[in-house]
């Protein structure tokens, strides 16, 4: 029987691309890896308006790669990204950076930002007992 590993290996070969800055629109694996970043940085790297967490869509790939490297080394201080950046190797980071660089930095509609929660903490509105 043909190894179960064959088909996935073929995918990786087909999908691999250097961090060239060329639009890696076909790099589906990188698109799904980047989707993990989207949880905090916004779908396709388009963060909601007023978000303290910056958008990544349309950022230059080299800039993203440098930030990840500096987070991991400690050269750029962070609250959480120094911990996350250490989980990605240079090849993974380069392909995710290429993917975000290829995304148009469109504004996110205000009604997409979710709920009526504002970015600033604590406007006291509780009922007094």
């Amino acid at each position: 029987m043909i190894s179960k590993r064959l088909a996935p290996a073929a995918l990786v070969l087909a999908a691999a691309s250097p961090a060239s800055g060329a639009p890696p629109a076909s790099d589906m694996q990188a698109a799904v890896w980047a989707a993990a970043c989207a949880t905090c940085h916004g779908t396709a790297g388009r963060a909601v308006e007023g978000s303290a967490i910056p958008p990544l869509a349309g950022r230059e790939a080299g800039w993203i790669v440098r930030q990840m490297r500096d987070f991991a080394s400690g050269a750029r201080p962070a609250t959480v990204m120094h911990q996350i950046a250490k989980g990605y190797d240079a090849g993974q980071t380069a392909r995710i950076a290429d993917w975000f660089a290829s995304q148009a930095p469109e504004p996110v509609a205000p009604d997409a930002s979710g709920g009526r929660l504002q970015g600033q903490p604590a406007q006291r509105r509780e009922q007094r007992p």
Partner: protein
Amino acid sequence: MNRRSLLKGMAAAGLLGPAPAVRAADAPLGKVVVVGGGYGGATAAKYLRLFGKGRIEVTLVEPNAEFVSCPLSNLVLGGSRQMTDITVSYDALARRHGVRVVRDRARSIDAARRTLRLAGGDTLSYDRLILSPGVDFMWDQVAGLEDGEARSTILHAWNAEHQTAALRRQLEAMPDGGVFVLTIPAAPYRCPPGPYERACQVAWYFKRHKPRSKVRIFDANQDITSKGPLFRQAWAEHYDGLIEYNPQFNAVAVDAAARSVEFELGETARADVLNVLPPMRAGAIAVDAGLATANGRWCEVDFLTFESVATPGVHVLGDSIQIAPAMPKSGHMANQHGKTCAAAVAALLSGAPVDPEPLYANTCYSFTSDREVIHVSSVHRYDPARKTMVSVHGAGGLSPAPNTRETPYAFGWARNIWADMLG
């Protein structure tokens, strides 16, 4: 990956015999039904539309009119936020992404016919079914809670929804000098740090409005299950004498009339407000379908596709699954499951190979006051030898201390993840 999808994948990659007929670029790929519009299910529905480039017909079955977030819901108990702050519409999923949102409850699965029956009477057919039903409670584990009446006064408030507002009302009605008792079940349960954050929020409210009151925590676990030193620091700094922590107290019975709880070794505790988190398991629809293959509680899945190991064509994600090592039952993690599953289902439906190297992260913020936060983070990759997700060595970590520097990021996390799943 099952044999059928493997062969389809190899065929698409040109590894088997004659090439299949080429599909038109816009031909429909199939029908997917998603059960549950929480962090896992709503994310899966939206990303099926994105990754399937609009060629997958997606139906989301969700009984609630609006999404209410469990993360941040403890702030409603503390009083610094309102229910409206953590409530988001499902409208954009339909309007912007073409997801068909059906407001109904899933009742039963016919896996052979690939149909899902709804409580309202309709039957939906699917090529693949994705279940993200969250947790259900094992009421039979806490004597006195088997009947519904006790459950109307002894709340869990662990699904957000109306119980969160109801527990807040109980706290508001409680006189100063009262006792709030919170019981925590043995892990695994939904949101490991959630109970300790809840203790902080209730204590924050008491400190300002009912300073003679007390928070008593009774935990079935050996010790605090997540962010332990950070919670202890917050308790010491802000809530000294207000929060009492009792590890290794497993709640086994309640007396609703006396508002008391009894523990495994016979001790009892009386409360003015009693908040019992019963032991949890996968959502009923998954358990009833025979998918809870791990101790009858949690659903084992293939971490490349989130397909059930028990039933081909049915995927399970979010809090219902038997988690991988060091993988928390969190909303953030369910969002990551949803995307991995959506990409895999899109691949399976189009005959493409499934990505063999999923890679994603978890970040979880807990509020220790109305404005101070702590986080835990981790990065997870697939280990092909062990066929599970493992945390990447050397990555991830904790906040150094409770702080306000991270507060804008904690609120930013909430707004972005809600937009990512529903916007």
